[in-house]
């Protein structure tokens, strides 16, 4: 895979939440900045799990509230 984890995470966030990739800043909160509702965030985690072929436990998933936290989680758990 040529693209970086950061790029892959941002692409999925943009797809799932229906926003433009340039709006997906690292510090953006899914709910407050990108307009996600709680169910959207559940689906976003599902999409991340599929992209990175991993399972994110519910208690961890709840903590992933921003783009950067998602990138961090993937880096820490898949690197």
């Amino acid at each position, binding site marked *: 895979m040529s693209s970086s984890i950061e790029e892959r995470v941002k692409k999925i966030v943009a797809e799932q939440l229906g926003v433009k990739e340039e709006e997906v800043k690292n510090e953006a909160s899914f709910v407050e900045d990108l307009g996600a*509702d709680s*169910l959207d965030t*559940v*689906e976003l985690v*599902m999409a991340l799990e599929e992209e990175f072929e991993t399972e994110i436990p519910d208690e961890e998933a709840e903590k992933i509230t921003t783009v950067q936290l998602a990138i961090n989680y993937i880096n820490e758990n898949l690197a």
Partner: protein
Amino acid sequence: MSLEGKVALVTGASRGIGAAIADTLAASGAIVVGTATSASGADAISARMQEKGLKGEGMALNVTDAESVAGVLAAIQEKYGAVQILVNNAGITKDNLLMRMSEDEWFDVINTNLSAIYRLSKACLRGMMKARWGRIVNISSIVGQMGNAGQTNYSATKAGVMGFSRSLAKEVGSRNITVNSVAPGFIDTDMTKVLPEEQKKAMFDNIPLGRFGQPEEIAGVVKFLCSADGGYVTGETIHVNGGLYMC
């Protein structure tokens, strides 16, 4: 056919209402996996469906065991794809007066009739959310609404099913997934065959239609909720009881 190619999972499909639901959905074109608690029960479902020329099969499932649920869903996913229609029908009774009811009688019924719905719905939702289409039909009971002496455990689960369905309907409605309950009255099945004659007679007097219902009359309502015709119905409890109880 209205359910052509849809993958449906029906729990408790060996006999009675569950068997009728499984066969009716399959006759409408769905690929149906019907579950039974034992391997021999599952084989009997496969044989029945094959004999009737229906698509699908039986699988053994213990709805109170999370691992068993995961195993069956993985098997369905591999063979047929994600479950699009889930009918939570499996249920048991362990009747007793509350003052004599043991913890086991209470929790066995709660686990099978109510906790299983949590487990199975949760497991099937992922695929439904991705597909932006899903149908969950939970089989409740008139007893959940009216109450019945000797069935505090059973009626608590059946009332619980209605509340569960309404809440989940609100959670996932935006993903085009409907969640409804069907509450049968007295249906001619093994579960009601054990009722004393006297009690049956007293019941007929209170049923405007003057008879017990047939399992197919429940299955028809479930089929409606799963079809495109039922697409705008969600969070609802449909009572099918010959008029014994009218909301």
